[in-house]
């Protein structure tokens, strides 16, 4: 029972964290260009004038 008191909140807490993170990625536009992101990983030299 003691183990449950620790593990259940821990599991749920981690799950909620993952859910919040998913919400953030969605709002941040991470799924707007899945094809572009797949090939962008291969760009090595960036010359953007930021």
């Amino acid at each position, binding site marked *: 029972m003691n183990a449950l008191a620790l593990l259940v909140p821990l599991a749920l807490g981690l799950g909620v964290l993952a859910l919040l993170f998913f919400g953030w990625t969605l709002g941040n536009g991470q799924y707007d260009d899945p094809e572009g992101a797949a090939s962008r990983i*291969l760009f090595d030299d960036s*010359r953007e004038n930021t």
Partner: protein
Amino acid sequence: MSALPARLDAAEPGLSAAACAHCGAPVAPGAGRFCCAGCEGAAALIAGLGLDAFYRRREAAAGGIRPAALPPVDFAARAVPARSGTEHSLDLMVAGLTCGACVWLVEQALAADPDVLRARASLSTRRLTITWRGPANRAESLAGLVARLGFHVAPWSAACLRATEDAEGKALLRALGIAAFGASNVMMLSVAVWVGSDMGEATRALMHWLAALIALPVVLVAGMPFYRSALAALRAGRVNMDMAVSLGVLATTAMSLSEALRNGPYTWFDGATALLALLLAGRVLDRAARRRARQACAELLALQSAEVTRLEIDGTAHRVGAETVCPGDRLLVAPGERLSLDGVLEGGEALLDTAATTGESLPRSFATGAALPAGAVNLGDALVQRVTAAAAEGSLAAVARLLERAEQARGRFVSIADRAARLYVPVVHVVAAATFLGWWLGVGVSWQAALVPAVAALIVTCPCGLAIAVPAVQVVAVGALFRRGVLTGSPTALERLAACDVAVLDKTGTLTTGRPALLPEPLRDPAVLEAAAALAASSRHPLSRALVAACPVPVHAAAGVEEIPGAGLLCGEQRLGSASFCGADGMAEDGPVLWYRASPGAEPVAFRFDDPLRPDAAEAVAALRAMGMEVELLSGDAPSAVGRAARALGIERWRAAATPADKAARIEQLRAGGRRPLMLGDGINDAAALALAHASATPAGGTDLAQAASDLVLRAEGLSALPAALRTARRAQRAARQNIAFSLVYNIVAVPMAVLGLVTPLIAALVMASSSLAVILNALRVGREATR
């Protein structure tokens, strides 16, 4: 990134390449490394920016990236100022972005400009956002740079935005995330209850309430898309699949809550959340498949978006949007420009290509004061048009209104999934209610205990397998067609296409290429062709262009050519044009002919033309017939041209000189006779018929109105995609029926077990997962067959 050897050697200097080193188009041996001056310029530009790595990076088959002309649009006016006007940004739609290398090239080329602060292209949406320091008028040159690299650019329009900004899709994705979180966490607790037979009562109650704590908000939030759709259907007095899903999920949740309250052996929260997660995953995939098609359609349309040149009273000319023009305004129509508004010709004579509005394959000349139809293309010199109707009242808008009405009629089409739901929902709910009453009043258990088998019956009838049966097939079929270049916009398009039994085809621009070609004549002197082509080179008339295109040697335009509208071309003593103009009267000719006379005394020579059939037209017609379709030809062109095409294709039923109203009437007549017509057409004159037909398709070069009216757009060149699409649609329909039948058979076994109270949540989960899997696997077969 590993280099692709085939492309690398083409890009090496000094090698004689058989393919253009920039765009990959075939080049004659010894003609150099590039197919045209434009490609050479683009390659030099890329090399100058130090971006040659592009040629090693790109993976898409080349051909689509020849340097493009900038559309006549005021880009500077669309730049959005930021930071009190010191910075500007511009959104562009970039067609031709096919792979990561293109994105890289565009971004890097723009970043090489020191004023550009940010350039970001999206491969999925084809949207390019450029932010730069400096005045708004830099927009033109920046857009021009992208065009010079070989990408067609257009301003990012509202239609593009509608197609890509997908609020509903985002909401679905969010719901899926929540449901997946809920399902996995509830399952963790449920498994503990299933295997923990030695679990104490108090621990089990804790597990039940923890599961409820997670499941209740999840069911409430993640189920929203289904509840909303079910409510909307209910208000309209209909029953749909979402209704079954909503009731199933809510009833399961309510029953689980009652089980948690009385601390029963099992709760069913896992079933409710897993059902939601599975169905939402199906929805998300379905939407993603269609979103790609909608975007591609918006992309095609954006490239055609029109601005017009208005002549102000003070004599200046301004480019304005077509929607701001009022009747009475005067517009300048440049050579080659498409008329966006109805009007009359102010002065002189005009030669217009009206193929899109009437289906005639030969251009028509118009005299001063004649009504010019919107949608025609100016083939002569620049002309001045006085507008008679604003965009909202013109002939194009009338067609657009017609399309809207037809669209609504199409919305009433009941898909096979909803037809199944109409049968399924009442039957299942009656069974569930009878089970509840039977256990409660018949057997005499408590009402809470009676609820368990009743709801178990509701959930094992697999709204899951049934609800996913059709979307799974749709996702696979729409995706397979997209890869073949067929864009499917409407959710019911494939189902309607599969049911079609008669094909009605347009001729000009659909079965034919829409461009006349010179007929070969073995006895003709090549020198005469060359001389005639030299005259023709300065004219934009389609026959002149065809003549130049048919000349085997490079044509040098003759100097001092005078064009006499409606007659022909004059250069010294040489004449090229109509029979009367060249003194060849009385020689009856069938089809379009150009006459050439070297001097007043010389014998006139005839050049005969034909609007050639697309190379795969005969094959496509034969394939349609082989699939049991009747084929009809319905054209606005002259009887001789239509008859010739019909004979060449072996089509018995054909009709020429059909007005747009005639075409629509023929479709109505077919429908009234119980037939399901499939209309294939490309012009504005086909739009009404396309919208009225049971299903409709437009080839790649179709006008925007025809594309908007069609269910399918055949993006790939040629017609062979149509029989392929029909075949895929029929297979998809068959697979959807199999899936529904399968789900029903499953229920015949599962429902009695549930009614007898033999089903536990574990069995329900297994039934649900296995039926969904079976249905998905069956759907995948459609994709495999379609791409083979």
